[in-house]
């Protein structure tokens, strides 16, 4: 086994055994499973019983006699508010409402209940609304029209391609969910990977292990093995997420349904997501190695590296602007800029998609940055890693790099 592979293997195992790494990797599936579990527990406790709810009403306006069955709610007529109150006290009904004589002109309905509540339950509101509108329209329009008036719109939109065919990517807000979660996790991962590299090199430097390592391997082997090892750990992380996202989504939509069942994973997203994840991981690992090479301590290195990791989280600050102007040339530039590309491209993939040329350009720039960065960092390591306790100035670094 060559020496780069040995360092790669060592770094890989060291990284995936870290508590922080394990927590971050398992956070998505575990939290999602917890969420689904908590939903079932909460909905199981608060789910209304299947039996029919009785709600009383007093019709002072007159004409509200039909349509007293609204789903699981049965509306019971009382002649006076006193009689309704008496039924409420005896728990014969859950609540009651009064339709005053001037209801047609004012629209006011007086509701009485013994339960404290923050908002009117949606089921009750719908039942009363439908009861009132159905009685008002009865005899005037056919029953089928009444149903349409109560639920007038079920809008279904289909996006077409330039040739008129149904587009593979249908867009919509639900398309944003998975890329949004993925880019957020990526930003976290990039920050963590930077920390791993800084801590790893920092430990080897502070514990004076570096010179022993350099007596066995070249700086290039050392840095390549480290960066690739940490990159492979990143791959494990993303594979766990990529496998768990569709599974969790399917579990959530079948067991919870509703909004969750409408969430879509944009086409090619998983493939591109993995590619950007790995490239992002590698580029920040290389960058952190460079920072570690010129920093006197791990703490100092983390301070410098945080400046660069800002680029990874910056797309979230401008989220509303990216959402409002997804095609702006500013985002195109930052989609090609290697430090902001991983997170920004993933966010844009969930919006209007990213043209192929931009994807290719950003990947090429990232790959070139990683290779160039590795060569540069190997040089920096050779020059500065044995200097303990002091950080060289920028001018000195440039001078040393020029002189080779």
């Amino acid at each position: 086994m060559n020496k780069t592979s040995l360092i790669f293997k060592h770094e890989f195992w060291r990284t995936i055994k870290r508590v922080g790494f394990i927590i971050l990797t398992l956070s998505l599936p575990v939290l999602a499973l917890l969420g689904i579990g908590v939903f079932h527990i909460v909905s199981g406790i608060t789910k209304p019983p299947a039996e029919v709810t009785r709600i009383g009403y007093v019709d002072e306006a007159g004409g509200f006699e039909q349509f007293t069955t609204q789903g699981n709610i049965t509306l019971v007529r009382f002649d006076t508010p006193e009689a309704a109150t008496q039924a409420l006290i005896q728990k014969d009904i859950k609540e009651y409402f009064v339709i005053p004589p001037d209801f047609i002109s004012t629209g006011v309905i007086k509701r009485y209940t013994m339960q404290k509540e923050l908002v009117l339950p949606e089921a009750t509101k719908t039942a009363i609304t439908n009861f009132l509108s159905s009685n008002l329209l009865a005899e005037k329009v056919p029953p089928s029209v009444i149903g349409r008036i109560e639920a007038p719109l079920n809008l279904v939109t289909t996006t077409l391609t330039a040739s008129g065919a149904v587009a593979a990517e249908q867009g919509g807000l639900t398309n944003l969910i998975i890329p949004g979660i993925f880019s957020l996790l990526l930003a976290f991962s990039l920050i963590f990977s930077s920390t791993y590299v800084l801590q790893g090199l920092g430990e080897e430097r502070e514990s004076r292990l570096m010179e022993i390592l350099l007596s066995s391997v070249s700086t290039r082997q050392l840095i390549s093995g480290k960066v690739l090892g940490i990159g492979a750990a990143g791959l494990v992380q993303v594979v766990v997420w990529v496998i768990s996202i569709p599974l969790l989504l399917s579990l959530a939509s079948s067991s919870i349904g509703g909004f969750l069942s409408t969430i879509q994973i944009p086409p090619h997203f998983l493939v591109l997501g993995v590619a950007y994840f790995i490239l992002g991981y590698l580029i920040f690992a290389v960058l952190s190695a460079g920072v570690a090479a010129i920093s006197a301590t791990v703490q100092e290195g983390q301070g410098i590296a945080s400046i660069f990791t800002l680029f990874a989280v910056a797309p979230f600050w401008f989220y509303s602007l990216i959402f409002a102007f997804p095609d702006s040339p500013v985002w195109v530039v930052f989609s090609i800029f290697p430090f902001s590309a991983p997170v920004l491209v993933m966010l844009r993939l969930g919006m209007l998609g990213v043209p192929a040329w931009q994807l290719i350009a950003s990947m090429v720039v990232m790959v070139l940055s990683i290779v160039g960065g590795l060569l540069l960092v190997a040089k920096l390591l050779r020059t500065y890693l044995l200097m303990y306790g002091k950080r060289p100035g920028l001018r000195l670094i440039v001078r040393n790099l020029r002189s080779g």
Partner: protein
Amino acid sequence: MPAVEVSHIVKSYTDKVVVNDLSFSVNQGEIFGLIGPNGAGKTTTIRMMMDIIKPDSGEVTILGEKLSEASKNKLGYLPEERGLYRKLTTIDSIIYLAALKGVDRHSAEEKADELLTQTGMLPHKRKKIEELSRGMKQIIQFIVTIIHNPELVILDEPFSGLDPVNTELLKGMFADLRNRGKAVVLSTHQMNEVEELCDRILMIDHGRSVLYGRLAEIKSRYRSNSVLLEFEGKLEEVPGVREKRTHQGYVELVLDGNTTPGQVLERLVSTGIVINRFEVATPSLNEIFLKVAGRNHE
């Protein structure tokens, strides 16, 4: 073929010359002392030998060739600034660092057991490095230095921080390496250790070579031509003795240029005094260094 051949190496940092036109060679089967005060340029010289830093000019050949990835596996290096992975166990540290020198896991573990037993460290095999004392860590570092059976071993200040027991243990292991035909470069500022162990030395000061050669020859070159005498009785004038210096408990007799210590001993015996100690005075390496360094600084 010498194990190390250093030819006219020069290294400067920001206009300060740290190593200045240094040349020397180290033979197989010898312990070579690289000595000098702190800041003399010893560590920089070693780092150039190890190809960790590049000389501005000059050449270094190790085992007959320029240092390459392959030849790095024939070298064992114990740097002055040294450490280990704190969270790894002793055996895992040894195996990983041995693997970087081309030793497979099985052989590394086998050899590690042998060396841990030899150094009395076997009970600490499964302990984490952070649980070991400083002296124990140094022993482990030395084991890592020699586990791959290197042809050339470079040791930079190997005794710093070691207790006398461990110091003696390491000295024995250094001698064993020499006896097995390995070349050992021992860099230190502790002259007494060098006198005890080294066959040849290079003394450097301010990056320059000030003394180079066989230790015995150097000491003989700087011999003061005097003898130390402890006796009972009355000491008369002795022919051939130019000067008599009285010290605490003994006298130093400075001989003239034509008299040997043997002749003086014969003459002293004939005077009838009881001789308890008769020793040809040789300067310590430290005294020689002070003399040479002082001369250079004048």
